């Protein structure tokens, strides 16, 4: 059983029951140096394991880049 999330604007298939750390692992993203939003709301790192993801959830995975 799997469902589709929208990660950084692109569809991503994950097994049902996937949580945020699992999603990052699936996508090959290191947990350090990223922050996460689900459906426009920041999810603090301490709550990543609590948050179960549902079909259609919009996830933003952001990091820091050069800028002025």
């Amino acid at each position: 059983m799997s469902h589709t999330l929208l990660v950084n604007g692109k569809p991503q298939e994950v097994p049902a029951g996937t949580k945020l750390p699992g999603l990052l692992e699936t996508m090959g993203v290191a947990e350090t140096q990223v922050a996460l939003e689900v459906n426009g709301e920041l999810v603090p790192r301490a709550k990543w394991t609590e948050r179960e993801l549902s079909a259609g959830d919009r996830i933003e995975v952001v990091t820091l880049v050069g800028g002025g």
Partner: protein
Amino acid sequence: MGPPLDKPLKIGSLQLTSRLLMGSGRYASHQEMIACLDASGSELITVAVRRVNLDQRAGTSLLDHIDRKRFQILPNTAGCYTVADALRTARLARELLDTPLIKLEVIGDPRTLLPDPLGTVEATKILVAEGFHVMAYCSDDPRLVATLADAGAAAVMPAGSPIGSGRGVSNPGNIEIARSLVDLPLIVDAGLGTASDVAQAMELGADGVLLNSAVAGAEDPERMARAMKFACCAGRDAYLAGRMPSRLHAQASSPEAGLLGEALSS
């Protein structure tokens, strides 16, 4: 001995000896950026928040190259055109860096990249209420600068001229008036192109300047970074020293008595 040392620049929880703040964008490589930071003497570097590129993961990230014991990191909300996006970005930045500092940018349109003044004030109030130390990028209107100070900003950052334009301080009088209206740190941000622009901003009474394109876009970025360090110190010292009054006509600096051709008095 020399004159007494300058006091440090304090912004919210920050304390800086160097009054030159540096951006980290548009460098050819991380190595070039670090060389420029070293040459500039800066202690603070700005960064932007962006989506992780999930198709093309880069080898190293920006933070791998910045020694956080040496450099304070100031995240920005560059690229945000709405209050809502700026708030989201600020919260993500705080989560990423565990810092209350944010350089708030609410941009009006992509062609001018000039700040949206009303959106900037609105976002400042909300972020201040959430405990952020807001450094508000704004236009050089002195009343807007005063309004942002009243809204609780930790620093105001009026633009010299549009971002990346290299046109210097377009309206020196406005920077001077703004300086006279607010006590909180005033950083001239954006538009500075070369060392004389930096010195001018500091002479007008800015507490600091923030540079990016002027260094990254120079033919020799590292040398320009060093030029900016000296310009910032020179402008600051000139401001603290208090310049001489300017006059229309000459006033001789050598004595007027005792000239060779002088008629002898009998």
